């Protein structure tokens, strides 16, 4: 056993022995390595495409698309550009994801709470729902709703008729379309005013309750105000809305608004599938709240519904929000399965048809990836902000 004869030197070690310097150097090297890999991949791709005579660049976005799209939220026809097909697909993706997130949250919360119900039947039905929908692949569920359920509806000529104004067939649901005439703005203004009053009222009622303990019935009042003011506007302006009622003509219904079955099937599948996961997240969140909290609230004489709304759920949200965020991201990304049933989402229209008509695979895949990344980051950001707002504030 020998001892180190050198004395311990005071001060900083040599740079190559300094762990801090080393860690910085290696991190710079790692970043440089990653950047170089990225650069050489890019160069390699560009060179290969050039040597194979493949056109590159984003000029194709201005060329005429020339194909039809079954559903678009923005004006579109075949004479418009590939850039426009991108926007049509993007809008359809955002529509189905947005509606899906909203509906899945509602269904998920209801089922999650029902799962904990003291009523045996309610709890078991919720359990059955969760286990069935969580364990069947989403693609199968999409096919099921599309081909087995909606596909089994009768054709347009035998459509299910609701009072001669709305029809349901295997071509979708056709509803009357409102046509706003001059003066209809008063109704819109009425709606805005009603919403503004509701918000102000809610803030005021909360402050008053905090100060005095008295509860103000905001919900019933807003339920009257929000449909009431636009209706008042409608009556005042002498009914400035007419309806475009669908009628059977030729092959299908003409006029009205059509909700295509592809949207319905995709929305149903995404909602029910994601809701089964959200239900479990909600249940775990509620279970995580100590039962002492519920007992204390009940001991104060609060009714059970208020215990849930004011005591349990706010605390459960802290556990619920982070996994809920990833369910929202999953739902958005899963909406790209639309291509299987022909719902014209971004992947179907842009990465399917547009890519194939132009052959610009690299550019189109890059744009599509960037879009999904942006949507995902935006959802994450919003949910993190919300999470911060509801997080436990330690004072």
């Amino acid at each position: 056993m020998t001892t180190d004869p050198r004395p311990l030197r005071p001060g900083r070690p040599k740079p190559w022995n300094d762990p801090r310097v080393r860690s910085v150097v290696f991190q710079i090297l790692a970043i440089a390595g990653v950047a170089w890999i990225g650069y050489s991949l890019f160069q390699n791709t560009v060179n290969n495409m050039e040597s194979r005579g493949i056109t590159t660049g984003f000029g194709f976005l201005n060329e005429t698309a020339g194909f039809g799209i079954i559903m678009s939220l923005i004006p579109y026809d075949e004479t418009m550009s590939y850039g426009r097909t991108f926007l049509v697909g993007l809008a359809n993706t955002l529509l189905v994801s947005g509606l899906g997130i909203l509906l899945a949250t509602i269904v998920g919360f209801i089922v999650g709470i029902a799962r904990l119900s003291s009523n045996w039947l309610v709890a078991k039905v919720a359990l059955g729902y969760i286990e069935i929908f969580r364990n069947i692949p989403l693609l199968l569920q999409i096919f099921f709703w599309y081909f087995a359920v909606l596909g089994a509806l009768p054709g347009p000529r035998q459509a299910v008729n609701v009072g001669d104004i709305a029809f349901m067939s295997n071509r979708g649901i056709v509803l009357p379309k409102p046509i706003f005439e001059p003066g209809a703005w008063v109704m819109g203004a009425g709606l805005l005013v009603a919403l503004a009053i509701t918000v102000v009222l809610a803030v005021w009622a909360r402050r008053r309750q905090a100060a005095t303990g008295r509860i103000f019935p905001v919900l019933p009042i807003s339920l009257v105000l929000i449909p009431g003011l636009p209706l008042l506007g409608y009556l005042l302006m002498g009914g400035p809305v007419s309806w475009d009622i669908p009628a059977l003509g030729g092959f299908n219904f003409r006029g009205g608004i059509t909700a295509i079955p592809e949207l319905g099937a995709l929305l149903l599948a995404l909602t029910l599938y994601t809701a089964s996961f959200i239900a479990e997240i909600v249940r775990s969140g509620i279970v995580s709240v100590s039962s002492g909290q519920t007992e204390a609230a009940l001991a104060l004489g609060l009714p059970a519904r208020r215990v849930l709304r004011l005591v349990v759920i706010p605390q459960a949200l802290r556990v619920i929000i982070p996994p809920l965020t990833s369910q929202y991201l999953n739902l958005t990304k899963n909406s790209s399965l639309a291509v299987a049933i022909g719902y014209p989402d971004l992947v179907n229209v842009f990465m399917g048809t547009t890519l194939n008509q132009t052959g610009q695979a690299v550019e189109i895949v890059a744009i599509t990836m960037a879009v999904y990344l942006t949507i995902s980051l935006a959802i994450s950001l919003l949910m993190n902000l919300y999470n911060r707002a509801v997080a436990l504030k330690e004072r």
Partner: protein
Amino acid sequence: MKKTIITMGLAATGLLALGGQAQASTLEDVRDAGQLRCGVSNGLPGFSQPDSDGNWAGLDVDTCRAVAAAVLGDADAVEFIPLTAAERFTALQSGEIDVLSRNTTWTTTRDASLGLNFTGTNYYDGQGFLVKEALGVDSAYDLDGAAVCTQAGTTTELNLADFFRANDMDYEAVVFDTSEGSAQGFDNNRCDILTSDTSQLAALRTQLSDPDSAVILPEVISKEPLGPVVRQGDDEWFNVVKWVLFGQINAEEYGVDSSNVEEMTDSNNPNVQRILGADGNMGEILGLDDDFMVEVISEVGNYGEMFNRNVGPDTPVGLSRGVNALWTDGGILYAPPFR
């Protein structure tokens, strides 16, 4: 620490190799692999469809087998890679397949901007409409307002839009990613019409739950020359694929088929001698054996045999030769001479 540096160095060397991928000869690659990778449709009766044992059959499949017979001397040395319409060009561009034989229409954009070369036409087609008999429609000009099932990323989708626009009619395009998907949509009454190349319509019709309930309308609204495709920039390979098909068409013209190819090598017809490699060096200048067409004809057959076996009048698809007859029989099939 030393270990880390060595690992990083190794990783960097590996990446360098990846960055400097060399442009190789497809013919050599196929020979080295001992197998031809051929991109085909993922299930279209008569053109490319696997049977219950997983053996692929069809006109497009036979075109792949003919190339494998010419290059490797074995028509079975083919790996069939099923592709959707939307995947096919990327698979060829990226080198995942050596040849694409998947009822693909030859168009300017595809030829000029996708880095592809069309080697010829193995089926002259045109786009048509399949409609349920019960609708009582007998002309494509009566289709105003119809819902139309079609396949994503095809020329069909564009011709459809052109046709309805040119005739000032409305339509609703229900677009699926596979041809079976569009046929299923039609079968389930999601749409009134199915549109595709007429050969495909005939093939898809056989898959309907009740094939007799649907009829193909008389109008053909476009030209669709279908044929094998290779990557641009490899002329040697381009020539090989091109001349295998030309060889099969020439063989039919001169009466060479799989049953008589052995005797025909002794034929005193100079055209037959050149096709079968008894005279001249056609194989050598293509980079193949001189008797490569003997291999192709004996294993796969001439164009007419290939047609009759897969899509001809005696098959479930039941297509007549029509314009796909030889030029000597009043059709437009006219291959350049072996000379």
